[in-house]
């Protein structure tokens, strides 16, 4: 078993957010990621085009 860091509420330490099961599911959901692929490519293209004068 993979040993995970123990995270307890009210402990005076900082813990970054960790993904929920649902987030992990959507990260590798083929259809959703297919949509993301085009969306992110579009965002990247906008940056690329803006970078050239």
């Amino acid at each position, binding site marked *: 078993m*993979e040993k995970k860091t123990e995270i307890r509420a009210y402990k005076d330490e900082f813990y*970054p957010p960790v*993904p929920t099961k649902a987030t992990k599911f*959507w990260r*590798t959901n083929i259809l959703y990621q297919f949509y*993301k692929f085009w969306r992110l490519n579009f*965002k*990247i293209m906008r940056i*690329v085009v803006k970078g*050239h004068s």
Partner: protein
Amino acid sequence: MAKVVVLGAGISGHTAASFLKKMLGKKHEVVVISPNRYYQWVPSNIWVGVGRMTVDQVRFPLDKVYKKWGIVYKQAKALEFFPEGDSENQFPYVTIEHVSAEQKGEREKVSYDYLVNATGPKLNFEATPGLGPAKFSYSVCAYDHAAHAWEGLQKAIEAMKNGQKQRLLIGTGHPGATCQGAAFEYTLNIAFELKRKKLSHMAEITWITNEYELGDFGMGGAFVKRGGYITSTKVFTESVLTENNIKWIKRAGVTKLEEGVAHYQTLAGEEKTQKFDFAMLIPAFKGQDFKAYSKTGEDITAKVFAPNGFMRVDADYTPKDYEDWTIADWPQTYQSPAYPNIYATGIAFAPPHGISKPMKSPTGLSITPAPPRTGMPSGVTGKIVAQNISHFIKHGDSEHKHKASMGRMGAACIVSAGYSMTKGLGATMTVSPIVPDWQRYPEWGRDIKATVGEVGLAGHWIKLFLHYMFIHKAKGYPFWWLLPE
């Protein structure tokens, strides 16, 4: 007939040479000088380092492409610049030393009308005693280094399979190193591969970095829109590392390596050590140790190059306090102020200063990431310099029609976090501009609408797509010039 000489055939030099030849045609000569006979798509070295790609998947020989395009290729390294010629030669030239088997050691003077210096960084392993593939750590900065790192990683994996816990240390190997993104990808890819092999419990992975906060990446961090909030790349990066059970040591300047031990100083001034069984640490970068001479033979290296060996261009190099840095300090044309027919593109130009806030330990050790110059700015600067030079040659003009500043240009960084077509992951990060413009974007320093930070399979697909797209472009396959940098 004009002659343009390009030094270096990496992302920047190869882009410059290909566009120069396309725009200048047969009437003018384009010469490329590079010691490595291969073009390499450096971002995919990460996958060579975890055995997911072979060396031949990330490189190809340059001579065939240059023959097809009509570019003269010399497999040699440039040594000295004579921008005024010398007592016998009225034309400016560079001295080169051939490295091919047939001409090894032969020296030559190559004259030029225009010179593009795109020689990238020198991997300065010597700046950290014990660092580097020949000593106690691995690197993924070149394809042969990455293949070597994979050999080392395989040994660590074998040891894990035999029940021996392994300590893996990944990150920056010098207090002033840059390229955190590449090391970060490598860490995540290793974590992914170990998970795939069900060996995560046998490894203790530690991320060691000279960043003040994680997610700085040498660009002072960034803010991203994520899950209905605007959050910093610090939180984003810590989240990704925590999820992968990777520990981190930040504000650490690695000063020395011995077998299995990294020595580092913290920003608080403490001297500490971290033990490892496998370490991949990025070295400091510097320029290529070029020398420059005037017509009379006087050493003018300091006039042409900055103390770090990178070439001075149209940046504002006046020393300024961090609070006074602006995007206007960053170059736009990449032209040498001393010699207008010389340009430096990609990593080869000297940045005016850092982007991250300079930090010093009480002992005076500067522990600050150097500014990154990623693939996109390297390609874009190569292209605009080619466009301007072609314009000058064809129209006798001297006005730079094309400009590109890192204070205007954005960057897309796809951090691979695991190689698989169905289960792979990539963190897509975009920022615009690369250098924060606090005047234009007083709230976040950058255009928050253009800034992305997302983890998902799509990121892996994009990274893989970019791999094939840029290799297609570099090989000069149909419509290569339509593909963006």
